[in-house]
């Protein structure tokens, strides 16, 4: 009951949190997100401690996850016991997985005329991780124009990733030419509908959602009733303590509606996940890292491996940032590494650039 009461306080909205630029509170924080010449808004600092989460513990926790742009990810009450007060007793991750996104194979304009090379660099980065990831999740826009040759290249490059399993969800670029037919043939085997699916891995429940099918004129991303109905059935047998990882291409919260950076019916999906103590939502689409914590839900977007896009509203359109100097390009592309600590219900998310 305490859990529920606390949750309702936290779910009173964003008021509990506000965005701030990274501080140097933790010596291991090295903010590296760099977009179009300005520092991005990288991390969420709690405005109040009303949710009872040990924020100092967050910062200490981050010391074990290494350098790079580290995020506090342990949203929700359960995370307060997930983080030991003594950072030296670093918990061992039960497993890690990696998210990559927006490889846009087929794109060949400034600032990146060789997106295959940067995808290969992303894979090299993954293969060089100290812990071999159990899974690799690609959150869509595998290709730029959904051409067979582009899908081929994605498969060839990702085949070299040292991981046991690769999961995909489509982006709008993968499905707009043929309503997703080729995508489903190549990357959607065994999935439902437009490519949604779920699986369990070492106690975590992974859910891949598709919010780029049947897009309505003037609208945002959409999940649709059929998928929501499937989601309801998919999670109904799970215990509330099961850590949930949801991934979809377009953000499942409204980042910036004017640019289509949101999902119309995401609130209905999140309502179905409300009873869970740890929900991590991973998205792509906006080609930059952004995070929001709301109650027990952590929302996070990954960088692209192809090209950066402007911060919301900071340009005339969400098109690629073209004027990235060649020697800076890899600093604005990247991968996301996520660690799950068994019994702790907390997932630590680290974004790393391709540098």
């Amino acid at each position, binding site marked *: 009951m305490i859990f529920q009461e606390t949750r309702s306080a936290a779910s009173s909205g964003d008021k509990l949190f506000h965005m701030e630029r990274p501080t140097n509170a933790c010596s291991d924080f090295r903010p590296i997100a760099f977009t179009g010449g300005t520092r991005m808004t990288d991390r969420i600092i709690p405005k109040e401690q009303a949710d009872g989460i040990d924020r100092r513990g967050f910062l200490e926790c981050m010391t074990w996850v290494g350098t790079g742009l580290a995020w506090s990810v342990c949203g929700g009450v359960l995370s307060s016991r997930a983080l030991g007060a003594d950072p030296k007793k670093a918990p061992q991750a039960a497993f890690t997985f990696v998210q990559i996104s927006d490889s846009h194979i087929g794109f060949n*304009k*400034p600032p990146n005329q060789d997106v295959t090379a940067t995808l290969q660099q992303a894979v090299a980065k993954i293969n060089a991780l100290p812990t071999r990831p159990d899974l690799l999740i690609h959150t869509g826009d595998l290709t*730029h*124009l959904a051409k067979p040759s582009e899908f081929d290249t994605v498969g060839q490059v990702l085949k070299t990733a040292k991981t046991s399993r690769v999961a995909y969800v489509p982006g*709008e*670029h993968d499905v*707009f*030419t043929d309503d997703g037919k080729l995508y489903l043939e190549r990357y959607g085997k065994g999935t439902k509908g437009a490519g949604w699916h779920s699986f369990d891995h070492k106690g975590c429940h992974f859910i891949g959602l598709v919010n780029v099918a049947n*897009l*309505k*004129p*003037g*609208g*945002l991303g959409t999940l649709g009733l059929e998928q929501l109905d499937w989601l309801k059935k998919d999670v109904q047998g799970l215990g509330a303590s099961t850590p949930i990882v949801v991934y979809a291409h377009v953000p499942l919260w409204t980042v910036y509606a*004017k*640019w*289509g950076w949101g999902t119309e019916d995401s609130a209905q999906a999140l309502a179905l996940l409300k009873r869970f103590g740890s929900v991590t939502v991973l998205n792509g689409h906006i080609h930059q890292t952004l995070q929001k914590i709301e109650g027990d839900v952590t929302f996070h977007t990954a960088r692209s491996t192809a090209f950066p896009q402007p911060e919301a509203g900071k340009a*005339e*359109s*969400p*098109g*690629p940032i*073209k004027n990235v100097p060649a020697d800076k390009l890899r600093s604005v592309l990247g991968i996301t590494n996520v660690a799950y600590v068994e019994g702790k219900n907390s997932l630590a998310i680290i974004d790393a650039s391709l540098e």
Partner: protein
Amino acid sequence: LGKTSVVLTAISLLALAAVGCAEDSANQYEKAGTTATDGGSPTAEAVKPIEIVIDNFTFSPAELTIAAGTKVTWVNHDDVPHTATSTAKPRSFASGTLDTDEKFSHVFTTPGTYEYFCAVHPKMTGRIIVK
């Protein structure tokens, strides 16, 4: 004979007058319609092919009124692909992929209002009114 001739002439004149009236009213109707359609622009311009430019994730002009038979061409000047896809089902037109600088044309023969959008970026919408 003379009488008959006069009567026939009179009938012919009446007939001509009637035709003239019909033609006049048809022209006026057409002109009135065209004026309303084009907001005062000359009829000759309405039948010229028209180009809609895609720039910065926007169709320009976003709304267009044309005469039936007008050929409309979309050209994409963005660095990312777009489409011009009719919202009607079944779709009355669909450009397919328009990568950078690619064009798509469609001749609108039937009067009506045609809404369309970009299937990649659905926030991009446009409307063509065919008179």
